[in-house]
Structures are given as structure tokens and as C-alpha cells.
């Protein structure tokens, strides 16, 4: 194991892997932001996905994470089952059905509609029926958008929400981490105070105020950015920035306190005592170690972004899933509510799982027990 040569070659492979992934990811984002359609984007993203998956598998096997993973997947399954049951029951608790309308329909028509959607069956039967279909991957048909399967509504709108969320997440790391590091490295100076003041503003500014100001300035006053819709890179800027401000501020504050913690540790003093340049100490020793708590915060951060995205989608008329959540609940569109709630929960559960695994990979001191 301690063989110098094997250690060298292993790192070599890892380095190549990192570089290739970096280049692929960068081109991937450029290509999808610019909006190149067709084969190129598909091939690029599937290559990235395959490589990521291969890397994960390699690390899972190497670090003996398989039993842990199996356990976590089973837990995730239970979680999602409970969520489906809960939402199902909550929906049936609400008075008023999906086909109530101002004008009362004849009783036979109502009975026929109820029979078609199995709404006349006992609750338990409806529930088992839904679960059975769910296991087959069938989310049912919407009650309001007649004849449209929930899965097709989701596949139409979800990519937009995902795009918005991912861009905002990336933006918040790109802004938050440097801001936090700068603040910490200039601890107790006006730079520190200023950045933390900015971050505090980012946490506390309500998104509709930020959005209003952006629209007033950039759309109405200078007319350089469109105030609504989602039709190209120019349209992305305002929603993504508005959504990203709060997470960026949270990350900046986290990074700052984490860096300050690490700066005081013994190995940093040693590195400085060795006579290393401050820049090297900061980037090679401090930053790497202080990013771990920041990365683990990604779970709650993603939850934050999902919730924030609903508001942003409504404000900027982004055709994502946010609109459907609110409309489907007030419409009593049971399958659509269940589908949307389930999808967001899956997203959250999976991202939490990925964060935990990632955590174990970057910090070998963490032992994930099965």
C-alpha cells in the first residue's frame, strides 16, 4: 500500500479525472446557457453523467460505502412513502373535490366523473391504487388539464425549475465563497465589516423587494434586461441573481466563520512557521479545510433554493413548476399535487444523500457507519 509508485500513479489518474471533468463541466454549462440544441448538448451531458457515476462507483467501492448506501436508500424509500401517504391524506382531509364548480352538474355526470377517476372507491383502495401506479412509474392524469398525464406536465416544467435552481446554486457558491474568504483574511478590518454587512443584507432582503428594484432599474429604466419569462441567457440573469442572493449571503457568512476557525488551528501556524507564502497558506491549507462545513451545508441550501424558486418563478413569470404547486392545491388536482410534492421531496432527499457521500469522500476522517 505504501508503495511510492502506486500512490503516484493513483493520484495521476485522479488528477486527469479532475481535469477532464472540469473541462467537460465548463463546456457543458457554456453550451447549455448559450442554448445550443441537439446532439452536442446531449452527448456532453451524458458523458459528464457517466463519468460522475463511474467516479462515484469507484469511490463507493474503494471506501466500502456500499452497505451504508443501501441503508440510506432504504431510509429514503421509507421517507418518500411516508410523504406520499401524508400528502394523500392531507388532500382528502380538505373539503371540496376537484370537480366542484360554480354551476352544479347533474348527479349522474358527477357520478360518472367520480367513477372514471375512481374517486367513488374507498379511500384505502384509492391509496393502494395510486401506490401501485406509482411503483410502475405512472403518476396519473391531471384532473384540471384533462387528458394530460402528470408526468408530461412535470417534464415540461421541471427542467426550467432545475435550470433556475442549478444556476442560482452555482452563482451563490461563486459569490459566497470568495466573499467569505476575503472577509476572513482581512478579519476585523473595514473589508470584513463591509462584506458581512453585505451578507447580512442578502439574508434579510425580501426577494420581492430585490426583484422589484432589479426590474425597475434594469428592465424599465435602462431596458437592458427582460423583466419576465425564460427564453434565453438574457432572461436568466434577473431571476437567477435574485434567487442566488440569499444563499450566496449564507455561504459567505459560513465560509468566513469556517475560515476563521481553521486559521487559528495548529497546522496553519506550522505552515506559516515553515515560511510559506501567505497566499499558499490561505489557498492550500486554509481554504481546503474550511470548505468542508460549507459543502455540507449544501443540503439545507438546496432546500432553501427550492422554496425560494417558487416565489421567483411567480415574480418573473418563469414557466417552471412553482405555479403548478399553488394552482394544483387550490384546484384540488390531487395527482398533480402529489406528483409535484413527491418530485421536490425526491430532489431534497437525493441531494442530501449526495452531500453526505461527498462529505465522506472529501474528508476521509468521516466514517459513514452502516
Amino acid at each position: 500500500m505504501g508503495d511510492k509508485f502506486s500512490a503516484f500513479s493513483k493520484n495521476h489518474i485522479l488528477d486527469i479525472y479532475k481535469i477532464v471533468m472540469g473541462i467537460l463541466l465548463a463546456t457543458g454549462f457554456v453550451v447549455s446557457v448559450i442554448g445550443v440544441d441537439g446532439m452536442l448538448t446531449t452527448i456532453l451531458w451524458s458523458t459528464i453523467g457517466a463519468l460522475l457515476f463511474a467516479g462515484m462507483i469507484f469511490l463507493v467501492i474503494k471506501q466500502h460505502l456500499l452497505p451504508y448506501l443501501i441503508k440510506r436508500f432504504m431510509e429514503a424509500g421509507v421517507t418518500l412513502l411516508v410523504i406520499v401517504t401524508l400528502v394523500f391524506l392531507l388532500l382528502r382531509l380538505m373539503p371540496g373535490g376537484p370537480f366542484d364548480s360554480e354551476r352544479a352538474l347533474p348527479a349522474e355526470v358527477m357520478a360518472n366523473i367520480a367513477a372514471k377517476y375512481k374517486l367513488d372507491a374507498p379511500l384505502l383502495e384509492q391509496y393502494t391504487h395510486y401506490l401501485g401506479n406509482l411503483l410502475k412509474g405512472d403518476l396519473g392524469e391531471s384532473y384540471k388539464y384533462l387528458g394530460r398525464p402528470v408526468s408530461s406536465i412535470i417534464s415540461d416544467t421541471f427542467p426550467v425549475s432545475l435550470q433556475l435552481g442549478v444556476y442560482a446554486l452555482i452563482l451563490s457558491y461563486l459569490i459566497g465563497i470568495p466573499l467569505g474568504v476575503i472577509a476572513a483574511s482581512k478579519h476585523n478590518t473595514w473589508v470584513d465589516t463591509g462584506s458581512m454587512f453585505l451578507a447580512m443584507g442578502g439574508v434579510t432582503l425580501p426577494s420581492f423587494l430585490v426583484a422589484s428594484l432589479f426590474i425597475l432599474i434594469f428592465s424599465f429604466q435602462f431596458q437592458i434586461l427582460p423583466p419576465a419569462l425564460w427564453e434565453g441567457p438574457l432572461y436568466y440573469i434577473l431571476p437567477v441573481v435574485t434567487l442566488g442572493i440569499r444563499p450566496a449571503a449564507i455561504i459567505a457568512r459560513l465560509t468566513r466563520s469556517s475560515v476563521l476557525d481553521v486559521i487559528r488551528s495548529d497546522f496553519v501556524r506550522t505552515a506559516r512557521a515553515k515560511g510559506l507564502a501567505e497566499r499558499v497558506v490561505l489557498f492550500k491549507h486554509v481554504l481546503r479545510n474550511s470548505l468542508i462545513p460549507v459543502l455540507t451545508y449544501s443540503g439545507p441550501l438546496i432546500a432553501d433554493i427550492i422554496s425560494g424558486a417558487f416565489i421567483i418563478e411567480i415574480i418573473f413569470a418563469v414557466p417552471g413548476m412553482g405555479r403548478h404547486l399553488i394552482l394544483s392545491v387550490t384546484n384540488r388536482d390531487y395527482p398533480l399535487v402529489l406528483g409535484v410534492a413527491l418530485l421536490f421531496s425526491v430532489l431534497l432527499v437525493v441531494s442530501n444523500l449526495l452531500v453526505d457521500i461527498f462529505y465522506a469522500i472529501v474528508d476521509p476522517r468521516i466514517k459513514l457507519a452502516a
Partner: protein
Amino acid sequence: MGTRIEIKAQTMITSVPNATTAVSPRHNSLWDESYKRLKKNKAAVISAYFILFVIGVAMFAQFLAPYSFDTQNVERILLSPNAQNWLGTDSLGRDIFSRLIFGSRISIAVGIFTAVVSLLMGTVYGAFSGWFGGKIDSLMMRLVDILYSIPALVLLVLAKVTIESLETFKDPELRALFSIFGALSIYGWMGMARIVRGQVLQAKQMQYIEAARSLGISSPSIVMRHILPNILGPIIVTLTFQIPANVMFESFLSFIGLGLQPPYSSWGVLANEGWRSLRTFPHLIISPGIAIFLTMLAFNLFGDGLRDAFDPKTK
């Protein structure tokens, strides 16, 4: 018997901040020390005064507001800020300044009330879970984890609509208000439960608890009289952060049209109305936005100050 243990508990806790700050040993209670540190934090002190001011405005809204929240004046619609209407008027000629003052009542009441309900629910749940530990603990915390995996706004919207459709009150506005209280409380208790449970788990290991146990004090009495007083700091800090979060959530719900309806006023309702006429009358959204921002800022700065005051190690 109990008092002696308590004295021991007090000295154990205070010995830590005393050692690090080395202030004169005359004021040696944890609360005195924390209060002193808090007073030195200018931002926190100013924020505390601002919070008191906002609460005062909310309480005495009817004496402070020049007009009522629903007085319409068709001759004075959609005015920009002027001498008679300090923040202008809306499309029905209602005075924005008065609506903002009355709106603070709902927004602040929702924020504080739901945070307190969450505090009570979460503390009972978390203390129970943490104190019993083992299987009960992991089961109870698993439930919290599961509920936490539902995105906040999905849960809030579902809970809000469900509670509102139950026939709780005859008056639709009262029902809407109650459903907001309910939904935010249902969402808020989980965070508190997690924090209290973690703190109880830590406190359980302390020697003074072992001493209390060996003296044969009953479990409820240990939790109530020895553990809770000692973990009050983190609980208060969490409460301070939960209030602005709830104010924000209320404004979100109202903004997307799920909160109160006009003529009733909350900051979220005002923002929603302002949003619809953003292009032509931007002043309508700016004032509620700034009111929410300043309140959030004050509570957050005060919360930060409290946290640093209770636990001087974190900076």
C-alpha cells in the same frame, strides 16, 4: 436538596465564561455576563430598540395611524408620497402609511405568535426525545427528518390550504389568519425540536444531572428544573431567528395570494398589491419591502448578538 444541586449547576456553567473573559467575579451569573456582553454590541442594542419600536407600533396601531386601514377616498387615488399621505395612496385611495402601520400588527403578531407556539411544541418534543434517548429518540427524530424532507413552501401551502378549508371560524378572514398561524407553527416546531434535543443530549452527560439522578429526583423534575434552565440560551437564540423567518414566510404566502385578502393589511398583502402596479406606481411595493427588510435585519442582528453573548467562543 434540589437547591444545592442547582447552585452546583450554576457554578459549573458560569465557570466557563468566567475563565475566558476574566470579568470581576462579583457578577457571576451566566445571565449577568451575557447581558454585559450583549450591551457592548452596538448593532444588537440598536436592533433591540428597533424591535421594541416595531412591536409598540403594532400594538398601538389604531392610535398612530392617521387613517384606518380600509378608509377609501376616491378623490385621492394612486398618489405619490405627499404631505397628507406620507407614503402615498393605493388604487382605492387608501393611505399606504396607515396600511403599513396596521399591517405591522398582523405581520409581527404572526411572527411572534407562531414562533412561540413552535417553541413550545418543539421544546416538549425535543426534550422528550433527547431525555429518553435510544429507540424512542431515533423514532421521534426520524419523523422530524421525514417532515423536513418536504420543501418548506410545499408543506406551508398544503398545510395552509388544508387548515383553511376546515370549518374553524365563521369569519373567512379569521379563518385565513388562523390557517397562517397553523401552517407556520406546523412548519416551525421541527427546527426547534432538533435544537432542543441536541442540547438535552449534551446536558444529559453533565455531572450535575448525574448528581440529580443519584439523589433520586424524578425525570420530569430533572428536565424541567435542571436541564431546561441550562439550555435556555440556545432556545432563546433560535426563537429570535424564528420570528423574522415567520414574518418572511407570512409575506411570501400573502404575496402569492394565499394569505389575507385586502382590505385587510399585512406587509405581504401590501407587497402583493404593490407588485401588481410595479411599473406605474413603484412606491407601493417599496415601503412594505423596506419595512420587512428592516424588521428582518433587526431581529437577525439581535439574534447574532444574543448568540455571541451566550456563547463567547463563537465569533
